[in-house]
């Protein structure tokens, strides 16, 4: 039962993280290159248009949910399982979701990179 709870929490962390990352990435693409905007019109308009972006706010909520799922997951399961499993699976999930929802060209080079990093993170934290 405990194992089921732990993996449920991991699944929740991964889902919330992926949704959050996709929304935040989309929001920042809508805002535009922050460095250029900053130079052109100053910091305050950049912050305003970021905080006023609906995708940004939704992404922030999803990221917060991922954070709290992580707290619950850590109270049910072992750190050495929950943290690396969640991080690894989030990498894979993000790559798939970025291809589908953000239309990023996740070519062979990036697939290899994502897989290497996912395995590496699992090894490091394990």
């Amino acid at each position, binding site marked *: 039962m405990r194992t089921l709870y732990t993996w449920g929490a991991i699944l929740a962390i991964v889902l919330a993280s992926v949704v959050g990352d996709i929304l935040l990435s989309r929001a920042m693409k809508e805002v535009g290159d922050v460095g250029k905007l900053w130079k052109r019109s*100053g910091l305050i308009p950049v912050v305003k248009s970021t905080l006023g972006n609906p995708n940004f706010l939704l992404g922030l909520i999803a990221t917060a949910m991922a954070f709290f799922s992580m707290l619950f997951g850590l109270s049910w399961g072992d750190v050495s399982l929950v943290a690396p499993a969640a991080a690894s699976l989030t990498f894979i999930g993000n790559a798939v979701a970025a291809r589908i929802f*953000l239309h990023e060209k996740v070519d062979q*080079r990036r697939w290899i990179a994502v897989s290497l990093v996912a395995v590496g993170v699992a090894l490091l934290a*394990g």
Partner: protein
Amino acid sequence: MTFDKYLVLGGVTVFAASGDSMLSHGMQETGGISLRHLTLVIAALLNPWVAIGILLLLGFFATYMIALSWADLTYVMPATSMGYVLLALIARFVLHEHVSALRWLGIALITGGVGFVAGGPELTTHRAAPIKSEQPPSGSDSQEAPGAANATPRGVKP
């Protein structure tokens, strides 16, 4: 990729690694928190390590957002994972902790993965038009941020 952009990606890495380690150090000092003892959450926030950790993680979030404004998610993601490598290297060479062979393999894989991504383009999607804030460039030079003088246009490096 300009020097500024590498600086932002470096910030993502350093803020993530330092923030996480400060936070976990502080949480170990305060002990576990649960929903039944919410006052302990406040005690945790007053712990200086936790407070510094949260500030650093805010720095991480800001640099992460800046990076996502000009690069793909699948480009920025591996940069955040370099934080794990940084932590392992600090554990080995600063704290003189033992780092197992399996962990060294993990470091090698992450570094290799980051190298693979860094060799490719940072943005593969068509950029969405920036929200209405197109202003004529004239006369806006005086408002430039202090760091702007360092930014050399692409391909005009000395």
